Each structure stands twice: as C-alpha cells, then as structure tokens.
C-alpha cells in the first residue's frame, strides 16, 4: 500500500495556522458563552477569565424555573416555521412568474423588493406597532408570523428567483406541451428540480426568523415572546447575570445550531447557487 506524502511547506503551515486562528477568533464568543453557561455567577465575572472550573448545571435550572423555556421555545418554533412555510408559499409563485415570464418591470420590482431590506427596521416600527395595536394583534404569535414572513419575503423571492432562473425554460415548456397543467408542471418538474433551492431558502429563512430579536421584542415580549426575548430578559437593569445569560443564550441557539449543523451542505449550496456553476 502506498501512502501519500503530505508536503508541509512553510507557506502551507502559515496558511493553515492563519485559517485556524481566524476560525477560532470568529468562534471565540460562542466558546466563551459555552464555558460561561456552566460557571457560577461569581466565576463568570472573574478577571482574568477562569478556564478550569467545576461545571455546574445550576444556571440552566434557574433559567428554566425563572422563565418558561418550553413556552418560549414553542413560540420560536411556531413563528419561524409558520412564517417560513407561509413565505415559501408566497415567494415560490412570485419567483416562478418572475423567472419564467419576466416583463419589463421584473428587474425593477426585484430591486424594489430588495431595497425594502435597506431601511432600518426601526423606521417602520411606529406605524406597524399602531396597526397591530388597532388590530389587537400585539403580543400574539400571529403578529410575529406576519412580520417574519414579510421580513424574509424579499430574500426568499430573490433566492428562489436565482434558483428558478437556472432551470432551463424549455423543460417547463416541454411539460406544458406534454399536457401538464400548471399544478402538474410545478409538482412533477419544477418541484423536483428546484427542491434544493426551496430547501436552502426555507432553511435560511428559518434561521433568520429564529434569530430575529427586534420585532420579537417590540411586538411580542410576553405571551408571544420567542427565545430571543427570553435571552434579553437576562440582561436586566438590576445587573448582568453573565452565567444565566449565557445559559439562556445557549438554550436559545441550540436547536437552530443543531439544524444548521446537519443541513450545512444545503445552506452553503443555497447561498452560493448560481455564483459557482
């Protein structure tokens, strides 16, 4: 059996070290948070930071007792999943028509949709708050679902549009010639060919909705509060509880990190689709 000799040239070693260094630097806050979550509050504020300590699960118990984790998590699941599904249902037909029957206005429309993402969210807070107040939707999951859907819609349409554009138009025309109705064309041709795009778009928007904090805090802090709002409640004016904040944060991001970990292939593919082909 022959073994390949790895060539550790100085340049390669330097590059590898630099890559690891940058990766660790980027990952450091997460590592720090992970450690802090298992410290006592006193250990957490110790300077210099302690790296050797006896881990404790106390923070998790306290967080779970003080705030109903399950309730917040459930709110997060409902708002992010429902908004993502709803968003896909609206964005897919929109992207389909823009990709396959573009008009003179299509490009302008796409840019306009994206431009809405340029506005700071706080600029729209007052009118939206008042509208939801009038509708009696404040602090409801419905409000968050609506706002998350609208927030992610431009990205969804854009991503699906680039996906669909890569599907040869003639394949859909062939299906039409074969007698397929619009639904059959979607079900038998567009869906199987575009499933990767739909999956990664959905996944990205799920993550974005899950991590959303601004609207969740302003429109649904109590009953409809998501994990993001639970986290924030631990940075209180009475003083910071680093360990508990870390424990809460860890619990908040855990589900999405797990999902992200297992679907990173789709995510990366989704974000680079069309760029490399």
């Amino acid at each position: 059996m022959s073994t390949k000799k790895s060539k550790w040239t100085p340049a390669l070693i330097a590059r590898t070290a630099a890559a690891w260094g940058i990766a660790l630097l980027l990952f450091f806050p997460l590592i720090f948070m992970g450690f802090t979550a298992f410290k006592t509050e006193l250990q957490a504020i110790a300077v210099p930071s302690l790296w050797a300590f006896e881990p404790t699960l106390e923070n998790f118990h306290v967080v779970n007792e003080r705030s109903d984790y399950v309730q917040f998590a459930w709110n997060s699941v409902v708002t992010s999943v429902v908004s993502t599904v709803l968003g896909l249902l609206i964005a897919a037909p929109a992207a389909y028509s823009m990709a396959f029957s573009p008009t003179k206005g299509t490009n302008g429309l796409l840019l306009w949709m994206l431009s809405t993402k340029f506005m700071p969210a706080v600029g729209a807070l007052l009118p939206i708050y008042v509208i939801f107040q009038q509708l009696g939707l404040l602090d409801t999951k419905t409000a968050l679902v609506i706002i998350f859907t609208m927030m992610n819609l431009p990205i969804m349409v854009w991503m699906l549009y680039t996906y669909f554009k890569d599907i040869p138009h003639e394949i859909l025309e062939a299906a039409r010639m074969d007698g397929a109705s619009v639904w059959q064309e979607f079900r038998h041709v567009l869906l199987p060919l575009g499933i990767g795009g739909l999956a990664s778009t959905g996944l990205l928007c799920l993550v974005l909705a899950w991590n959303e904090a601004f609207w969740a805090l302003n429109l649904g802090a109590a009953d409809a509060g998501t994990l993001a709002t639970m986290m924030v409640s631990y940075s209180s004016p009475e003083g910071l509880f680093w360990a508990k904040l870390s424990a809460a944060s860890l619990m908040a991001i855990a589900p999405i990190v797990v999902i992200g970990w297992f679907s990173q292939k789709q995510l990366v593919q989704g974000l680079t689709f069309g760029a490399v082909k």
Partner: protein
Amino acid sequence: MSYLELKNVDKYYGDVHAIKGVNLTINKGEFIVFVGPSGCGKSTLLRMIAGLEEINDGDLVLDGNEITHQAPSKRDLAMVFQSYALYPHMTVEENMSFALRIKGEEQSIIDQKVAKAAETLNLTPYLKRTPKELSGGQRQRVAIGRAIVRSPKVFLFDEPLSNLDAALRGQTRVEIAELHRDLNATSIYVTHDQVEAMTLADRVVVLQGGVIEQVGTPMELYEAPANKFVAQFIGQPQMNLLSASYFSGISADAVDVGVRPEHFSIVDAGQGAISGQVELIEALGNETLIHVCLEGSGEKLIVRQYEQPSIKVRDSVSINYDASHLHQFDAKGEAIR
C-alpha cells in the same frame, strides 16, 4: 384536406412586428419545413402554433377547431426542442411516459407504447438511464420518443438536429424521414439548414422578416423560385445573379437574371456568351466549382462541372448558359414567369 390553418397570424414584441399576417394551410400527414435565415420568425411561428407564444392577431385552426388562444397543454401537439428539454430527474422511460402518466393512461398501455417507441428508436437498452448518461444523439431520440408515444395531432420540431455533429445529423435526418414515412404524422419542422429542408419536406415554407416568401415542394422552390431571396436561399452554392445585359432573348422587364451553377458551362474561347477570368477552382471530388470574375463589370459567378476541368486559375474562359433554365427577376426582385 386542410388540417392546420393559420389565418392572417400576427405577432408583436413591443413595437417589433415579428410575424406579419401569415397565411398557411397544412394538410393532414404532410411534412412541412419552415426555413429561413436567423431571425426570420420561423421558430416564433412554430412556437405560436405550439401555444408557447401568444398569437396577437389572426386565427389558428386545428382539425376544424379554433385553438388560437388555447393553452399549449390542451392542443394535443408534441414538440421536439433544439436543446432536447428532457426532464433531467427522470429516466428515459419516465421521460417518454410522462405525458401518458399525467393524462391518467392505464399502466399496461403506457408500458406497451413506451416499449414500442423505444424499439423503433433503438432506445430499449437505455430505458432505465437518466438523460445525463446518454449521448447527444440518444437524447435527441428520447425527445423524439417522448413525442411519438403520445400520438399527437401534429409533431413540431424546433431545429432538432442543430446540436448534433455533422455525421449524426445526417443519420438522424434519415431516421426522422423514415419515421415520418412509417407514422405518416403531420409534422412541422423548423431549420435553417436547407439540406434538411430539401430532403425532409413535402412542402417548404421559406420565411424572411416575418413574411412567407414562398411555399412549395422542394423542387418547385429550386426550379421556380418566386423571387430573388428564395432563388438565392435555396441551392448550394447559391444561384448566380447577373445583370440582364449579359443575356439575350429575355423579358424587357428583367433586371437581374439568375442561373444555377450547373446551368453554366465552360466552352472554348470565343464560343460563349460571357467571358471572364478564373479566380478559384474548388475540386470537391464528384464535382468542381469554378469561380469566375466577369470581364468589364467584375461580377462574379460560379460554374458547376461534373468532369475534371482542364483549365487553371487565372485562365481566361468563355461561358455559356442553358437558356431554358434562366430565372428572370424584375426591379422588385420578383420572378417574371
């Protein structure tokens, strides 16, 4: 008997009038070829018949029914695309049976039809493969198979051979001709290749600028072109066009006279009506093309000759024409009959 009829059909893209009031009648079982230069509207016209492009004005009648604004899925036409347009996620078998499956045809009938089409097209060993595992020629045959299994009212071919290499193109052309002979299905075939047009068609439709220039059998187009455009478009090398002054005994209205290369002959010096200097000799084996620059006017012509020529480049030659095969055109370029 008229089977498919286009009545004054128009197509606009914004301000561009792409198809200008086209009238055409196609009979059942006929093989019609649309031919013309790039951008002449031949593919657009085919796609309008298919329903993939909207018809802005005029009527389309198929088998007695008006289908001008009917959805393509309801027209019962099959199309073979230039890019094959196979469903990449389906096997050959699934590709070919797709139309029947969504129509809700019985499985036994589907199997039978697919097997028969696959046998006709020599695709039986490949039924379980996906398109990406096939060669270009095989893919094109699957695309044809997908059309055949449906037994549609009309077959539409949109430059089906242009993605194939020369050898395969010739072979597939023969297969399509045989297929049409066996199935006797009404077919419309778009190409820019006049060899395909001449060999496949019962009737050829020559298009230019969104207008039909002439409709006729291949030999009608070759022997009696309606105008200078058709005269020069059909035939390879193209028909020589010379000013009428070189010819005697022709109509007074004739401005240009067309002569096919084979209707010129090189004769002994001083014996011919036209004289010039040989510029180039192309020996193609079975024939020789002699390019001649005419004295005085500098006009050029090509003489086709089947025997080996004894002349050389830069020789002065005398040329005669076959007076029974002259094509006379008036100032507008229309043929004088």
